[in-house]
């Protein structure tokens, strides 16, 4: 019996692949992404803290807007104090609606990851024509401020159609974060050539854990520590990527920032920190693309 398949990557087992290191012999690449999002008022999709799938109101809009007004800046201050590099997955519409915000992010030199147009929509049901238009809009908006196009893409809610990765490759993207299938990067086949999948977490992600699964802030902080400690041990055998997905309106709440600050401080004090490469996803992608042929088999 044959089932529908994606045909985008072959099967491969983590401990049976050619070995490699991150730069300077490091073994665990660590990166953190903060999603910065623009929502429609009173329409479309958007998370709510009390009720999953709640209607869009000023209440949940306001709760999410806290992220851009307050949360993001407190998170950035924390990461700067911890000396952790960060990247931002930014909705294209933030570029039009909040130019002063994006100017600050670009001035910091953090990596910007294209994050769809708005998190009030999900790409899954779009026609190819409209999705291509969406991707182009976002790329143009980010390039206009950053002078170079974004290298990576993360769809709102990991949303993709059957042709998203074809369109991304055709639009010049180098890597995508929508396929949480591995702890290492791997190549995806597209109609326009290979596109790199870089690990980005569905679970070590504050929207999944704190909003959908309703875990407490301290529980999420424990997950971060557990993930880090186990991967630091596992990476002796294989080079791995530890990725943390945060959203300004979720982890920017002071009580969550407090728990996260302690967890990250604990991780950074680990005796095996010498194995760690504090990085951004674009650097991880470029390092993989520059590995000798055959290390990361291309489709």
């Amino acid at each position, binding site marked *: 019996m044959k089932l529908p398949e994606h045909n985008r990557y072959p099967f491969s087992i983590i401990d049976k692949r050619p070995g490699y290191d991150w730069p300077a012999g490091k073994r665990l690449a660590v990166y953190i992404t903060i999603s910065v999002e623009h929502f429609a008022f009173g329409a479309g999709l958007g998370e709510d803290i009390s009720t999953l799938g709640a209607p869009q109101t000023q209440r949940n809009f306001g709760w999410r807007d806290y992220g851009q007004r307050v949360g993001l800046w407190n998170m950035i201050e924390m990461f700067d104090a911890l000396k952790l590099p960060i990247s931002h997955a930014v909705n294209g519409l933030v570029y039009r609606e909040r130019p002063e915000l994006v100017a600050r992010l670009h001035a910091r030199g953090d990596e910007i990851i294209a994050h769809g147009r708005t998190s009030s929509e999900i790409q899954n049901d779009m026609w190819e024509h409209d999705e291509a238009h969406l991707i182009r809009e976002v790329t143009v908006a980010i390039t206009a401020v950053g002078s170079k196009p974004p290298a990576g893409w993360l769809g709102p809610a990991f949303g993709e159609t059957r042709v998203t990765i074809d369109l991304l490759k055709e639009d010049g993207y180098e890597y995508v974060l929508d396929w949480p299938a591995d*702890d290492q990067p791997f190549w995806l086949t597209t109609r326009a050539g290979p596109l790199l999948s870089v690990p980005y977490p569905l679970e070590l992600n504050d929207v999944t854990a704190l909003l959908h699964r309703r875990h407490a802030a301290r529980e999420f902080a424990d997950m971060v520590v557990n993930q880090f400690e186990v991967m630091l041990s596992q990476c002796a055998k294989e080079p791995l990527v530890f990725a943390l997905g945060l959203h300004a309106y979720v982890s920017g709440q002071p009580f969550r920032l407090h728990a996260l600050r302690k967890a990250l401080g604990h991780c950074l004090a680990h005796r095996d920190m010498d194995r760690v490469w504090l990085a951004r996803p674009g650097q991880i992608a470029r390092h993989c693309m520059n590995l000798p042929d055959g290390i990361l088999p291309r489709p």
Partner: protein
Amino acid sequence: MIDRRPVYDWPDGKRLAFYIGTNVEYFAFGTGVGSDPAFGSGGRQTQRNYAWRDYGHRVGIWRLFDLLDELKLPAAHNLSSLMCTHRPEIVERMRARGDEIIGHGRTQSERQIAMWEDDETRMVAESTAAIQAAYRTRPYGWMGPGMSHTPVTIDVLQEAGYKFVMDWCCDDQPFWMKARAGRILCVPYPLEVNDSVTLLFRQQTASEFADMIVDQFDEMIEQCVKRPLVCTIALHPMTMGQPFRLGLLGSALKHIANHPQRDRVWFTLPGRIAEHCAGLPAGIVPGS
């Protein structure tokens, strides 16, 4: 009623049969049913949740195999038969470990409850034959995808040569069930100490699940002084193989493997439990 039944022992006078069951499943891409850590069993099927489940095949199951090897524990694997053709390396590692395979349908993307008897009979035959071809022995136990039964599933399974089923979750001891052409043993398997139900549907944390495993064992190791029991845990590679959960699982399993009363424990597999019960005199196991 459990406390009114004849008392018996497991082999060597043991009283607590303990086994680990994993669920190693093959999915259709973009259609059918399948879980998502945000949406439990709901949510549309996309690359997001397919990839998250594929992590279990690429990474998670290998971490679990290594952990079980380290602890020298066998496991029973509820295996989608399509794993035999699509992920033969995983099946080969199971065979190398000497683990047991439990019939688990063709794919986790479908449910038996939606099938006519003819189609259910054919599905059972196809999946059994596929495992026999890959594993060299056929499975004698069944745990259906989503534990979903039709009114005739028990009959279909018994007629297909299955000796035991694991999807009724109604007892801590095995007992015999009547089928239209004979009988079939019901072997305990957990609905609650099960990472799919607890982590995905109830959305509890990894620590809470690890605590459940420890508490279940600690309670049953005392209960078993009075009567033979079966203690079992159910795992999925894409959940328990995630690094933030793996360490906690390791600690819970070490608590069990190194328990001061481990001399009461028969570290075993469901097929061996079924064989032991089938060999007991009539009247000992309920329903016999």
